[in-house]
Each structure stands twice: as structure tokens, then as C-alpha cells.
């Protein structure tokens, strides 16, 4: 028996998306093979990393995160600048957690004002995230989208209950959307269908299939991503060919283990890195992360995997 490399034939391809303007713009997705497998298809863009900041001081963030940034976190534009200059991610993710009714319940105008400040502070592309409160996100997203008009940002997260508002906001201001579904491949597809049927271009949708942290359901996210990529690449299902975003930082730093700071490197850093790596192995195209050291580990690994 002699060995021949067993290759898969892919009939589909993930859509390649462009975010941001000018020389800092970033391309995401575009692959025509499973992760790492460049011997049988193209991976034109390495997985992208966005680093997360919040509109209000994040009281609830774990200590190792707070100590990385210190007081900078109290000034959103300073924080945004710091991230761009020091961590150098592909994108910045601004989470408007202060708009949540259980938090500061900030208004659409206040939120839009924060978006404007961040837009003015950075050159890299921006991801604008609400607080995942369906009604409140619906209320604020149009104004926030306007505050970044023309910047080719990404706004999220559109859910089944509010996708129309997101689609309208994104269309009127030239942004893309992150569509969030509940850890279920059929629901993910359903939302993409609803969005495109409402007239929103498929070329501007990112999928968030809901990320769960390592040890807390990571395997569900992992398998949902793998199944989506199989449908997208092998069955050429055009409603599954949107790049996948994994919102890792928020999940990874929430778990009990990440509060352990008795080790040399805080456990949360590794929790975030390895959760991220798990999703990249399944087929994630973009990560939203928090800790610079975790970002660093992922970046080094990705460089070794993809850059010859």
C-alpha cells in the first residue's frame, strides 16, 4: 500500500469581508478549507483578533484584567488609544455594557457619544456591541451606528427579536452586522435567512453562534462551528458561509477558574487563550478577546500556523 495524501474536495467558500477604511482596513474569512489545512484549499486571511473595551468602568472584570490597564479604563478614548498602540489588535470592540438597564442604563445619546469618542481616538476598525439586552440594544443601535457612519464598522449583536432594527442601522450607515444565535446550527442559519430576506446583504453578516467558555460548554460551540463549516465548505450552503466571530473574553473571564491568581501566569490568561485556540481549531474566523497576554499567545500560534 502506498501513501497518498487524503484530500477533501470543497465546493464552497467562506465569504471574505472587509471592515474599516484605508490602510487599517482588515479582511476576514475567505477560506476554502478547514482550519490549518492549506494543503487542500486557500486561507487568504489569518484569524483576526479584536480587543474589547467597555463604555463604563467594568467593575465586574477580573483583577488580572484590571491590573493590566489600571486607571486607563476610566477614560474610554484613552483606553481605546492604548489598545491600538500597545496591543495592536486588528480591530477594537467597544461593548456598551453601561446601556444595560441593570447597569447604568445609559441612553442612546450617551452611548452614541461614547462611540464618537472612540471613533475619533482610533484608526483600526471598530466593532460596536450592545449589552445583549434585546430591547435596549434595539433602542440604542441606530444612534450608535450613526456615530460611526462611514467607518465600515461592525455592529452587534442582532438577534431574532431585533435583527430588523440592526439591518436598518447597518444599511443606513454602511456597517456590517454580527448575528447572534443560540448554540444551534439551525437557528444560526435561520437568522441569516431572515436577514437576507429582509434585504440585508449576505456579504455583510458575521455569525456569532454563541461562545461558551472552556469547561462550560465549549464543546457545544466547537461542534456547532465545525458543523457550520462542513455545511458551508462541503455542501456549499450559502446561508452558512458567513465568517464566524467568537466572543471569547467575556465568557472566559466569567468562569470560576479564571479568578485564580495564585499561579505565576493568571489562570484566566490561559483560560482565554485555550478557549480561543479551541474555536480557531474548529473554524472561527475572528476572536473578541480581553487580556493582552492571551492575545499574544494566540498571535504567536497563528503566526506559526499560517505565516511561513
Amino acid at each position, binding site marked *: *500500500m*502506498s*501513501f497518498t*495524501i*487524503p484530500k477533501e474536495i470543497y465546493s464552497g467558500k467562506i465569504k471574505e469581508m472587509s471592515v474599516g477604511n484605508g490602510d487599517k482596513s482588515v479582511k476576514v474569512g475567505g477560506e476554502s478549507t*478547514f482550519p*490549518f*489545512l*492549506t*494543503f487542500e484549499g486557500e486561507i487568504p486571511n489569518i484569524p483576526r483578533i479584536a480587543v474589547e473595551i467597555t463604555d463604563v468602568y467594568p467593575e465586574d472584570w477580573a483583577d488580572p484584567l484590571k491590573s493590566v490597564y489600571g486607571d486607563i479604563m476610566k477614560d474610554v478614548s484613552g483606553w481605546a488609544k492604548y489598545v491600538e498602540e500597545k496591543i495592536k489588535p486588528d480591530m477594537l470592540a467597544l461593548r456598551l455594557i453601561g446601556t444595560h438597564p*441593570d447597569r447604568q442604563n445609559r441612553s442612546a445619546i450617551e452611548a452614541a457619544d461614547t462611540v464618537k469618542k472612540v471613533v475619533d481616538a482610533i484608526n483600526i476598525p471598530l466593532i460596536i456591541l450592545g449589552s445583549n439586552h434585546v430591547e435596549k440594544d434595539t433602542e440604542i443601535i441606530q444612534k450608535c451606528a450613526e456615530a460611526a457612519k462611514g467607518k465600515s464598522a461592525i455592529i452587534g449583536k442582532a438577534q431574532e427579536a431585533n435583527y430588523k432594527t440592526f439591518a436598518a442601522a447597518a444599511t443606513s450607515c454602511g456597517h456590517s452586522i454580527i448575528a447572534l444565535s443560540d448554540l444551534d446550527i439551525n437557528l444560526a442559519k435561520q437568522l441569516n435567512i431572515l436577514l437576507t430576506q429582509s434585504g440585508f446583504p449576505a456579504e455583510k453578516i458575521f455569525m456569532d453562534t454563541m461562545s*461558551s467558555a*472552556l*469547561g*462550560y*460548554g*465549549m*464543546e*457545544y460551540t*466547537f*461542534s456547532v462551528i*465545525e*458543523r457550520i463549516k*462542513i455545511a458551508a465548505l462541503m455542501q456549499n450552503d450559502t446561508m452558512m458561509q458567513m465568517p464566524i466571530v467568537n466572543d471569547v473574553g467575556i465568557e472566559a473571564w*466569567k*468562569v*470560576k*477558574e479564571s479568578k*485564580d491568581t495564585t*499561579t*505565576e*501566569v*493568571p*489562570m484566566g*490568561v*490561559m*483560560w482565554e*487563550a*485555550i*478557549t480561543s*485556540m*479551541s474555536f480557531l*481549531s*474548529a473554524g472561527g474566523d475572528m476572536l473578541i478577546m480581553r487580556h493582552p*497576554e492571551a492575545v499574544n*499567545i*494566540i498571535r*504567536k*500560534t497563528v503566526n*506559526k*500556523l*499560517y505565516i*511561513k
Partner: protein
Amino acid sequence: MALSGIQIFKYLPKTNCGKCKFPTCLAFAMKLAAKQASLDDCPDASNEAKEILGAASEPPIRLIKIGTGEDLYKVGEEAVMFRHEKTFYNPCGFSRMIKDTDSTDNIKLIISNLNDFVYERVGQHLKVDIIYIKNESGDKDKFVNTVKLVQAGIKRPLILDSSNIDNLKAALDICADKKPLIYAANEDNYETMTALAKEKGCSLVVTSIQGGLEALSVLTEKITGLGFKDIVLDPASKSLSSLVQELTQIRRAAIKKSFKPLGFPVIIFSGRYSDGDRLLEANISAIGVSKYASIIVMNDTSREIMIPLFAMRQNIYTDPQKPMQVEEKIYKIGEANEDSPVLITTNFSLTYFIVAGEVENSKVPSWLVVANVEGLSVLTAWAAGKFTPEKITKLVKESGIESMVKHRKLIIPGYVAVLSGGIESKLPDWKIQVGPREASGIINFLKNYAA
């Protein structure tokens, strides 16, 4: 590859003699295909039939055992490319590298750390599974002494690595009964190495000096030709990107093409690609966990590296048809007492972990009653008719919670608010309170609740 009943039938005597206790050879063939009978039951089966059907019934990736008795670690026997198709079966083993050039004190310290490090998670006791001893010095005495030191200090399956056969023999003289995995046979030494492994009853890593999977498969064919099959592959990939690609190619060749020469578990060395960076090494190991490594050798096994890797392995290797579960009981969170709130949830480990985590984060000491609904989430269990007023009533009555708290207030998940009427009518002393739908609302809920 599995054969169909018709394919198997071709190899049977076709006399319908009935000695196998089946009326016809075809009926027997069907049972064989369904793995409900054994070819041994047909006394007239030819040797050819035994060989062909025997090979066909072998798993596409051979099961390999390292160690013996309580210190036995099994790898291989995987059957799928993607975990959702069936399940990843034998969890990859994490192996700690110890070099004989290290000082005795340092080796003792590593051993004592490994002994101390047992981590409990979802009912499993996790530890670094295997110890890898490398004859880095090339010196026989140093190697043997290190093996002695490790054996005296810790009970774990071993891997012995030396490029010098005499050194390996000397080390095996003191530990062959523990059935260590031997590293490694290559083009130059495979005959003596295979003879040694055969003699000692150990498994053997095979690696090609020439490199590449073609050369590796030529080599394993030569070795299996010598009548030895207990092989572990080291693809010795030149870069991280070729490693992950070759891991996939090996798995695919074995499973999808039934390519026997690569139908063995694979050992990887994360440190070969990490430039001495221990965090990068850990992350590379993580790729190994999800992408088909069976043994992962690491230079650093600190807590912050192993605990996430243990969690990842648990996730990747859970049976997707059988969710991870926690025990049905009352969990005490914080210094809960007779006035503390009582919450109820299901025993799906994910649900339990999320809810318990949020209750803990609220810093409000509480009792969490966990119902056995066969590992389903709250909504799924409700939809499946397993999380019902009857079930909850029975649990409240039988769990002992009524003697643990003075009050009679039970907090149920917001998604199953509809259950409250039903529970209250069955548990008239109890007042049912509907909690938030999402666990993220629990912190606020409990803070206000306690106040």
C-alpha cells in the same frame, strides 16, 4: 473498514451446516456484520476468511496500552474525524518530559509536584497521565538512574526515550514489567528495536529519519511485516503548520481510507515548535487535543497550563449524545445556613456550572438543589417532560432540604415559570419564586433577595 453481511458471506463455507447456531451462513454473516456474533463460532471458516474478516473487524486506529494495572493508559481506537459524528473515545494522554541531564534535586522536585497535583473536575480526578524519560545525556548510568528515581518517586505509565539501544535495554531491565512505551524505531534501527519491543511486550514509537508520511508508512509496514503492531507514530513534522496538517492526514488516511500503515495513535512534542515559550507550548498542546494527537509531551506542566488543558480534553472527549452530568444532590454554596435562599436547577453539568458560578459570584450563601433529569438543560428537560412539578416535589421531599432550612421558599429558573402553579399545588407549604431567565441575572436577583 467494516464489511457488509453480503461481503462477509462470500468468505464463509456456504454449507449452511448450522454449527454456528444460525440456520444459514448468510444469517450468520448478517450477525457478524452487526457485530453480534464472532467468527470463532464457525468451526469450518478457512484461514483466509479469518485473516480477512479479522483485519476488517480491527478498529481503524489501533488501541495502544502504556503501563499496566492501575497505571495503564489507553490511546487510539478512534473512529471519527469530528466529535459530533460519534465521539472521541480515548482521551489523549498528557506526558511530562524529564531529561536525565537535569539535576537529581530538580527531578525530585518535578516528581513531587506531579504527585501533589491532582485536580478534581466534574467528578474526574485529573493528573498528568504519563512520564517521559529522555536519555538526553547519552550516558547509560544517568539514564538508568533517572528511571530508578522516577520509579521510586511516582507511579505513572512511562515512556523511555534513547537513541542508544544498549541504554534502552539497561533501562528496560529495571522496568520492563511496567510496560513502558519505547521511543523510537527508525529506518536504521527498526529491526533491533522491534525485536526489543516484542521481547519485552512493550509498545514502540516509530519515526522516520527521512521524514514525511510516505516514509513513515513504509517504515511501519516493514515493522508490521515483522509481526509487530503495537505502534505509536511520531510524524516528526518540521513545523507547526505541517504538524497540524499531518495529524489530520494521518487520521483521515486511517479512518476514511482504511490505510493500515498509518492506523496508529500519534505522539506529538509541543515543545518542538514553541521556542522555549511555555505558554505557546500549552497552546500548541491545545491544538493537539482537538486535532488528533493521542499523546502530548510537554516540558511544562504547571497548574495554569494543565487545568485549562484538562478542561479542554473533557469537553472535546465528552460523548455528544450523552451530556456530562453532575450528581443529584443539594450543593452548599458559601456558608449557607438555615435562612439561606434555596434554588433549583438541573443536573446538566453546563447548567449546573453556570448557575453555581453565578450564585457564587453573588457572594450570597445559598443552597442549590440539583435535579437528575439525565443531564438535560432546563428548557430541554422541561420540553422532554423530565423537569416537572412531580419531579421537583419528590426532590424537595426526599433531598432533606426541608430539614436544612427554616423557610419554605424555592427559587425556580425563569424559563420554567409555568411550573410554579403545579409545584405550589403539590407542595402547599412552599412558596415558589420565579428567578431570572438567564443565569447572568442571578447576581442581582440574589443581592436584592437577601436584602
